[in-house]
């Protein structure tokens, strides 16, 4: 070890900026535009629309694939006559009822689960049993129990929201650090107060994730359920609109209905949930 040669010290002069040119320079307009995610996505959407239109014209068979412009016309017609809005309203209404009931039940289940051991065991058992079960598989049973109509829809809706939300919320509660719980108890909080003021906000990232999964399940389930028995229900939703249009061979209307489903899904996921995320978990630094 001692034979390391004595090395000379090194002190250097730093080069001036004139030698390496740029320290910081604005990007070109094109580069700046390309960095905008929304703009890139819009370009992709426009490309899809162009390909669709071209293929539709080439095929020239509106019964198989109507052109993009025909679909937009049908969509516009549906919006103007109010039919599409009415159908969407019915669907969203049923969804909100089912969603609220699901959220309420999930809250009851998880609060029981974190306050009692037997509640935990119960939650773990029932979520393990029911969460792999597709909601649509329950529809025949729901029809027998609740008949044709909103009751059955709400039942399958609750099924699709409840389990993922309860599972996520419970996992979130368990992940709250012992230190935060102790802080809450230090202020004299206990029981429900601790749950409401410490555990729920601390577990909010998981709860929000559960709500998003629940919403996605519920929305898909609802449309599928309406397709299955929409024929007989008095006041149909979007699924029924698609079914009806298909029966009358109004294929552009079928596509318009599908587009509406996509648009509502995107709105909820990218506007409503994104806004909640930005105002809560992102702002708090609990999610990046």
């Amino acid at each position: 070890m001692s034979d390391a040669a004595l090395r000379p010290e090194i002190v250097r002069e730093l080069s001036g900026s004139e030698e390496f040119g740029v320290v910081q320079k604005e990007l070109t307009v094109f580069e700046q535009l390309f960095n905008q995610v929304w703009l890139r996505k819009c370009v992709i959407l426009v490309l899809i629309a162009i390909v669709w239109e071209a293929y539709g014209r080439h095929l020239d068979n509106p019964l198989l694939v109507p052109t993009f412009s025909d679909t937009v016309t049908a969509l516009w017609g549906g919006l103007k006559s109010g039919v599409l809005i009415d159908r969407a309203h019915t669907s969203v209404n049923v969804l909100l009822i089912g969603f609220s009931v699901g959220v309420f039940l999930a809250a009851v289940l998880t609060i029981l689960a974190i306050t009692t051991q037997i509640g935990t065991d119960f939650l773990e058992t029932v979520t393990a049993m029911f969460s792999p079960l597709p909601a649509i598989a329950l529809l025949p049973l729901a029809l027998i129990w609740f008949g044709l109509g909103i009751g059955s829809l709400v039942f399958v809706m609750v099924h699709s929201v409840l389990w993922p939300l309860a599972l996520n919320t419970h996992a979130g509660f368990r992940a709250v650090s012992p230190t935060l719980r102790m802080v809450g108890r230090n202020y004299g909080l206990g029981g429900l107060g601790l749950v409401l003021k410490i555990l729920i906000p601390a577990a909010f990232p998981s709860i929000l994730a559960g709500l998003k999964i629940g919403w996605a399940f519920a929305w898909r389930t609802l449309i599928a359920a309406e397709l299955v028995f929409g024929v007989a229900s008095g006041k149909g939703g979007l699924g029924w609109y698609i079914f009806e249009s298909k029966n009358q061979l109004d294929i552009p209307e079928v596509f318009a209905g599908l587009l509406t489903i996509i648009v509502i899904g995107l709105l909820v996921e990218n506007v409503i949930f994104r806004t909640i995320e930005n105002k809560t978990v992102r702002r708090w630094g609990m999610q990046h």
Partner: protein
Amino acid sequence: MGMKLDQTLPQPLLDVRGVTLQYKTRDHLVTATYRVDFSVQRSDRFVLLGPSGCGKSTLLKAVGGYMAPVEGEIHLKGAKITRPGPDRMMVFQEFDQLLPWKTVRQNVMFALETSGKLRGKAADEKAMQYIDKVHLTRFADAYPHTLSGGMKQRVAIARGMAMEPDILLMDEPFAALDALTRQRMQDELLQLWDETKFTVLFVTHSIAEAVKIGNRILLLSPHPGQVKAEMNSVPRDGDPAQAAALEARIHDMLFADKVEEDEHV
């Protein structure tokens, strides 16, 4: 334990008598402390010092009311401690002790309002007064995740002090900080003490920190924690050699009979 001299002192603020603490891990019952006695007077900077495994943090949790002794009793102002409460504010070592969904100001206010001590504007003023004391006025509306570790600990201290508890319980609050920040925080804590003369029970495993922060030091031996000695610290503005001598003495007492236990302290 020839500590009968204490009888002449006024009734202690905090009185820990014959406290044995046990907790269960997955497959063991661990005795953390065995028949620990000590008492804290008003405006004491009382330090619990000992190596890992001496039960000092467990003891602090018991004073905080988070666990009950299996033997002995803990009294605060003559009343037995049975549960956590805002008269004993905890400052933890972990940086995640601040509520991430509240700003600095809201964190301090939340403590005041939730415990029912103050409401609305009064709570806000009290919060800002203590945030100012820890030099974080500029960051009052910042969320905790934007603060450095030292700043988070200062918020936790401000929160604890704003509650004006009977006793502030600090569980190695500076242990996770870098050396320079830790030193500054120790100085700031002493400055705050000069201003308000609060009572603090301070847990540490650093002998130097104990001598610097404390006016009275309780030495605990490990496995299980038992009182080895209770000693006075040196005057704060005294001769550094005096402090060094005390540190050496404590070091010898703690490690004389435990050479084989190579804890990194």
